[in-house]
């Protein structure tokens, strides 16, 4: 129907005049190019003109993407610390040997010095990606599903979840560093929480109050189950279990032991070398700051599923969970795959947040491969450009495969 058709470009013109900036700055600036472009048009004709339009973009791509990509391979076969290509001696495969001559690449210690850093970074990055990507995707999906419900002020919530994406990695790192310091607010809060629990455990009427409250919850559950008793044996079994739980709560539950706890011993979250906390917080902070972006993509995917499919399902008597499994999940799958691969590509390039937050430490616990490349080329005194280039070539292989998968998925999604 005409009323529901996409608004045509003419409708856009009316709404986007562009304002004074467009009228007084941009348009005159572009108009200044008119005479030379008109001259080019008479010289080259309509056939030649598209190449002129493409020239700036292709020149930059050529100089700053394709040329470096080729140089990368060349540099990886050269040695020395010079940045003048002619001065760089050809060393054959020596740089690759420095990275790959390990007894086992799974044990970075068995590698030469450069290889140790590279494989430590590689395995850390891989571990990071394998842990972070599923967590991020799951949380982003859950958030998108919640935001796709009929909730009040959806735009407000959506914006809040997106806000960390706007923050720069350096800001994000400072914010979390401040929270996670040994004497930071998180440790203070946990100490406070432990003290509160112990104070509660020492409170006289605790036992009575807790048991009554727990019984009320069990009773409410049992009442709901009672109305469902005709639905099958499971409801009856659950009722029996409720009775058992009630008996245990009253006669066997040691409330004070449940509530009381040891005093909290502050953890040096980002520097404790004897735990996995630094790695955990790197995953956490990275997820915190990038979640909103993937949430938006998934939300757009969810909103692209026509509403009336759910209404049709409702008319068909489909339970909500079944509508989710049979309609939402399959129709969201292409978007979900794109999100998975996109976040995987990005996870493999992680650098900024970790570099500022932990600097790769403690030790090499959170040292990622990009940091290794960056430091061996630009920070170390030796300026190991060749080794860094060789490491880049190896990393490029991984990214290449992932990106090709992503492109294939995007294309399939667009075609579907």
């Amino acid at each position, binding site marked *: 129907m005409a009323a529901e058709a996409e608004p045509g470009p003419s409708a856009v013109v009316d709404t986007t005049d562009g304002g004074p900036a467009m009228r007084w700055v941009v348009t005159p600036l572009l108009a200044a190019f008119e005479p030379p472009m008109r001259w080019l048009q008479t010289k080259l004709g309509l056939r030649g003109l598209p190449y002129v339009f493409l020239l700036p973009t292709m020149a930059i791509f050529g100089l700053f993407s394709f040329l470096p990509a080729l140089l990368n391979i060349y540099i990886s076969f050269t040695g020395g610390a010079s940045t003048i290509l002619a001065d760089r001696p050809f060393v054959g495969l020596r740089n690759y040997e420095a990275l790959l001559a390990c007894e086992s690449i799974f044990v970075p210690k068995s590698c030469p010095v450069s290889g140790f850093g590279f494989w430590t970074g590689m395995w850390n990055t891989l571990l990071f990606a394998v842990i972070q990507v599923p967590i991020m995707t799951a949380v982003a999906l859950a958030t998108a599903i919640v935001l796709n419900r009929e909730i009040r002020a959806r735009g407000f919530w959506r914006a809040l979840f997106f806000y960390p994406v706007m923050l720069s990695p350096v800001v994000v790192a400072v914010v979390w560093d401040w929270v996670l310091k040994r004497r930071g607010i998180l440790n203070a809060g946990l100490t406070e929480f432990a003290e509160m629990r112990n104070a509660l455990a020492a409170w006289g009427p605790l036992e009575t109050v807790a048991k009554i409250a727990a019984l009320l919850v069990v009773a409410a559950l049992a009442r709901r189950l009672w109305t469902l008793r005709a639905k099958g044996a499971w409801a009856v079994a659950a009722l029996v279990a409720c009775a058992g739980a009630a008996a245990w709560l009253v006669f066997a539950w040691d409330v004070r032991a449940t509530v009381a706890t040891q005093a909290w011993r502050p953890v040096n979250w980002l520097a404790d070398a004897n735990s996995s906390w630094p790695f955990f917080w790197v995953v956490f902070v990275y997820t915190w700051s990038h979640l909103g972006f993937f949430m938006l993509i998934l939300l757009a995917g969810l909103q692209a599923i026509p509403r*009336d*499919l759910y209404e*049709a399902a*409702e008319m068909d008597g*489909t339970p909500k969970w079944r509508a989710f499994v049979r309609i939402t999940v*399959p*129709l969201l799958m292409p978007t979900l795959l794109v999100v998975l691969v996109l976040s995987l590509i990005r996870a493999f390039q992680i650098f900024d947040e970790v570099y500022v937050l932990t600097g790769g430490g403690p030790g090499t616990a959170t040292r990622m491969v990009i940091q290794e490349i960056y430091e061996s080329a630009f920070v170390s005194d030796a300026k190991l450009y060749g080794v860094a280039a060789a490491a880049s070539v190896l990393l490029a292989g991984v990214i290449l495969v992932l990106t090709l998968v992503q492109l294939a998925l995007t294309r399939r999604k667009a075609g579907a």
Partner: protein
Amino acid sequence: MATLELSSVRKSFGATNVIHGIDLAIAHGEFCVFVGPSGCGKSTLLRMIAGLESVSGGEVRIDGKRVNELGASERGLAMVFQSYALYPHMSVRKNLSFGLENVRMPQAEIDRRVAEAARMLRLEPYLERRPGALSGGQRQRVAIGRAVVREPKIFLFDEPLSNLDAELRVRMRAELGALHERIGNTMIYVTHDQVEAMTLADRIAVLRDGRCEQFAAPLELYNAPANEFVAGFIGSPRMNFLKGTLAAAGAGDASVALAVGGEVHATGLTAAGAKRPTAGEPVTLGVRPEHLQLVAPGAGQADMKVDLTEQLGGESYIYGSLAEGATLVVRLAGQTRIERGQSVGVDFAGSSSLHLFDGEGKALARRTA
């Protein structure tokens, strides 16, 4: 048996009322059409019956039982959506069987129903295809099939033909009529197209601004519209309306002094409502284009200058203007010699059928052929 009753059903979104108390009773096996201009609330009303929108006031009863609080799935209805709402990732067979699997129907019964619906709707060759690979008409039939297999008490159709091209629409319209003949269920059908309404319906409810203007059989709407809106909405081109004042009113006759000049004395009238016409009240005279008589200039009650003639071969339309900007459309059978710029007389009193509406638009009296 499936009957549907609405009693003073209301719907409001926040502070805005969109349905203002509608009463309807639809009998078993009836094909009922809700028709009205866009924004009149006909789709909302259908969705309230379906259970997709909550009911703000009044009562919806199916088979005499109140269903206001029942969810869409518990009312035993099936709906065909305007966009068809076919599951794009499932084959036609899956689309048909999805709703049946929800209620844990035995597989043999599902297969039987799907096969029967596919046969009835000629979908057998396409059962393994996905909706994306079907034409518009085929998708439409799948959407209907999805409703048919459920064997619902009542079928609901929400503008089901509006996404089809004109030719296909006529064909599907006939198929829908045949389907109703064959399965005989109660059906409720929403459309803005009066031709669909007139051809399909047993009874039509004409809606405007959330109110039911008239609920009657198609020809009754045409012959005895309850008010000016229904008279103007049903029939194409629409009825001519002329403002005037009631000069005199008797038992079976009335004289109307037209605002454009001239007086029409109409005899053989029957009262349309309980209200007695009284002399001096403002009235509107309504005559359908096909009922007007053209005569020599000066011989009728008013003269009209012809602005445009449309010759369709089998019939002709004359568009003309009277004094003070009033316009008229006249339909003549066959072809005509009347040309643009010519002056012709219009004989209102001699029209085979005419209607009188009071100042509020309610029907006062009419003469029918």
